[in-house]
């Protein structure tokens, strides 16, 4: 299958799932769609081999990297508001947010790397070691990000103890 056919097929069949993943990072649907679009273009601007089975993994990696790079370079005042906004103010009328305003607001309080770690750990179900490899940081750094995230999320989500966000185990949680 030619690369452009692979690209169209992946976008058509897995585009929604990729947008859902990207949404957890961006918190905005349009930004998530932009992110997926950019990641797909990046991936298929380079790929030459027919390693179809790994294509989605490549795109997910590109989504993550693009998100972190963009956040480092293009933050806005508006983004900062999320850091100080309370849950009610962050929830807004968005139909997506309405389903779990608490989780959406909690994610908005995390730094980009913390957010990436939390999503990779609790949505992608990756180990600390795998997250470290994805982010090109040490396992200790990942544990630190997860620990900081847990500390920030706990008051908002009512976490009673320190075990809610697992920072130490090597294996997947589920």
């Amino acid at each position, binding site marked *: 299958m030619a690369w452009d056919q692979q690209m169209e097929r992946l976008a058509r069949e897995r585009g*929604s799932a990729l947008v859902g993943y990207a*949404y957890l990072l961006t918190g905005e649907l349009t930004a998530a769609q932009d992110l997926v679009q950019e990641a797909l*273009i990046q991936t298929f601007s380079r790929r030459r081999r027919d390693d179809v089975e790994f294509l989605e993994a490549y795109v997910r990696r590109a989504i993550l990297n693009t998100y972190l790079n963009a956040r*480092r*370079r293009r933050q806005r*005042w508006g983004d*900062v508001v999320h850091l100080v906004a309370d849950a009610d103010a962050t929830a807004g009328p968005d*139909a997506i947010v309405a389903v779990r305003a608490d989780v959406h607001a909690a994610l908005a309080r995390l730094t980009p790397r913390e957010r990436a770690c939390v999503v990779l750990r*609790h949505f992608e179900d990756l180990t600390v070691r795998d997250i470290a490899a994805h982010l090109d940081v040490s396992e200790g750094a990942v544990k630190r990000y997860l620990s900081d995230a847990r500390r920030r999320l706990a008051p908002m989500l*009512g976490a009673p103890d320190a075990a809610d966000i697992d920072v130490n185990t090597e294996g997947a949680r589920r």
Partner: protein
Amino acid sequence: MSEDFESGLRDLSTRAAQAHDAGAGLPLTAMVGRARRNRRARAAGVSLATVAAVVGVTLGGVAAMERLGDPAPVPPAVTPSPTAEPAGTVLTCGLAIADLAVFDDAPVTIEALLDDAVVAPGEPLTTRVTVAAVHPPGGDVGEDSLTLLTFAAVQDGVVVGLGLGTVNPGSTQGLSGRSGVTALSTIDLATCGEDGEAVSPLDVGGYQLYAGLTASFAGSGGEQRMLLGGPWPFTITDQPPTEEPAGPPALEDLVISTDGLGPLRLGDPVPTAPGLTDIIRWDDQACAGTDMPGRWVPVYGQVPVSGGYTWYPFSVGVSADGAIVRLEVDATGPHTAEGIGVGSSLDELRAAYPDAELLVGEYSTDAWGLRSGGAVISFEVAARDDVEWSPEELDHVVRVHVLPADTTWFSNWGWGELCG
């Protein structure tokens, strides 16, 4: 929390996917088209993705910009071979600018900001060059496009000198590499000899600097044409300056106070017309690719800042009605009357301001504040042994804010004002 939290993540993701499905979906044709152009451009050694069909982009001897740090000696500037490009599509000695085959509706713009428009003979020009895609419809501009620029010195509309640029990749600031890229460029200009070869140095006199990029673009019918930036006037003189030229104050001379930063005052309007002493300017390309029209940026360009990044030495927050509402200093240089600024140690800060109060201590910094009147200075100190701090930064000021006292947002390390 864990099960519920993970369930919440899945719910959010699912709802986002459903909302996406309910819309127009991903623009498959446009995406494939962009990827195809990227692949073509990459194959041609160009990552200027607005180029629809890159045909024979030839750099010529003067076109390639050396990267700083490259130990290879800078070659002398020479005129490109006349057989390498169609006539009028490259900047060559003796060429009349009016004769250039310029792309009228160019999808990419080239802008330059000269650090100093008056230089001595043999002294290179230092400029910040920005190559940006026009929005809409937008497009990609890769960092490599900077390496394709040619520079020319022009008098009376004719190219009389050529330039060999060097680009500092560490200073590049792209919009995720998508819409524009800026780099600090040092240009050695050489005058044209009788045989068309460029020899140095450029003679004393007044000139106009142009920058060009040769390629074929969508809409050019496959013909190679020139994307041209300029003119940017400059003067070469062997006369010592008789008086200090007017210009913005040095960063080291900017004083941070609860009033503001140097001439910038909280609550004051941003300048409505550019002046020589202004320390900020409006950059309508700075937010290309976003829904923001641009932003106010310091005229000092980008410098090393805390955290190992390269960024503007300070940022200015401006309200919708054009008033300065927040100032953030990220680089060494600006300081308070007591000498405290980015790079000062916590001990120095506490010694200078014994009454400084700990405004907030969370995340990776502590914010120590000084209140006066209706404003506060917040010194963000790298407070915890976070992975992002170098040993030299830990327990030192990494960002200074000047902001209204009624705010509660005293620290924002890891965040900042970039567009808006």
